[in-house]
């Protein structure tokens, strides 16, 4: 049984895939613009479902967040490397390690900055 992978967009947007499935679907998203577009739309849709669950946070949360960010270094933005343009989109055969560790799915990791 090799189910059509394109049908996983909904489950992906709902974070309803197992870790393994999520990884392989993200690999698919790198290749499939149609799915990537659909996922972006369905994630925006899912976020609206999320926004319907508004609940006032405990007041202590604000202080805790602001205290913690003061001690956390920010990651740099993705900087397109000079040689990214020409080479006929030479995709790395192997995906960079630690890819998208925890980052949200649609905004995928910056392209590798150096190799």
């Amino acid at each position, binding site marked *: 049984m090799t*189910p059509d992978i394109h*049908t*996983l*967009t*909904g*489950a992906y*947007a*709902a*974070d*309803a*895939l*197992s870790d393994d499935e999520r990884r392989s679907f993200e690999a698919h998203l790198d290749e499939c613009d149609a799915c990537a*577009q*659909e996922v*972006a*739309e*369905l*994630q*925006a*849709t*899912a*976020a*609206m*479902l*999320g*926004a*319907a*669950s*508004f*609940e*006032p*946070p*405990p007041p*202590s*949360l*604000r202080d*805790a*967040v*602001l205290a*913690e*960010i*003061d001690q*956390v*270094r*920010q*990651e*740099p*933005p*993705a900087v397109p490397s000079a040689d990214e343009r020409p080479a006929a989109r030479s995709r790395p055969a192997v995906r960079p390690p630690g890819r998208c560790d*925890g*980052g*949200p*799915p*649609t*905004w995928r*990791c*910056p392209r590798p900055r150096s190799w």
Partner: protein
Amino acid sequence: MDRPLTSSGGGGASRRDRLRSVEPATPELAAEELLLAAARGDQAAFAALYDRFGGLVYGIVRRVVRDPAQSEEVAQEVFVEAWRTAARFDPAKGSAQTWLLTMAHRRAVDRVRSEQASRERTERIGHRDRQRPFDEVAEQVEVRLEHAQVRDALSTLTDLQREAVELAYYGGHTYREVAELLDTPLGTIKTRMRDGFIRLRDALGVSA
């Protein structure tokens, strides 16, 4: 106007330049601009962002995770991650709200899954004690505009689509668990989930 963007001072002057046409009226500032300012290290902008989205992030986390103390922890992780990775936010790819809530939901689900994994050694399926009737959940939810819209949109789904979407998104279940809970074949659940989201997308007028 020589006031800082946001109430607490300590920011540099340069960030004000990039946020042109910004009046001191912080509430009018687009969330995307706040996030971009935060990406440049503006903690006051980040605080304003928190003030705008704290309840949304906490709300979805709490809906999935349930336990208030754990929810608070997860919500804190979400905001810290947002701070850390703010420079990766690309407004061309979606709104700040979608970015944050996507992150929040993912983290909430991750928390639920890891709790479940540790329980699964002893229990066959760990989801049973987390499952609760949706009506009960709905009552805890503060009514806001989006809520009514979302309810209306959900009501346009077939029962199976709606249950699949709700169990996955609000319940934090994998689609395999959803198939089990609804006693429905996997393939059917996958397609119903997708169809359900597509219908919601159209009903809510979402474009990305």
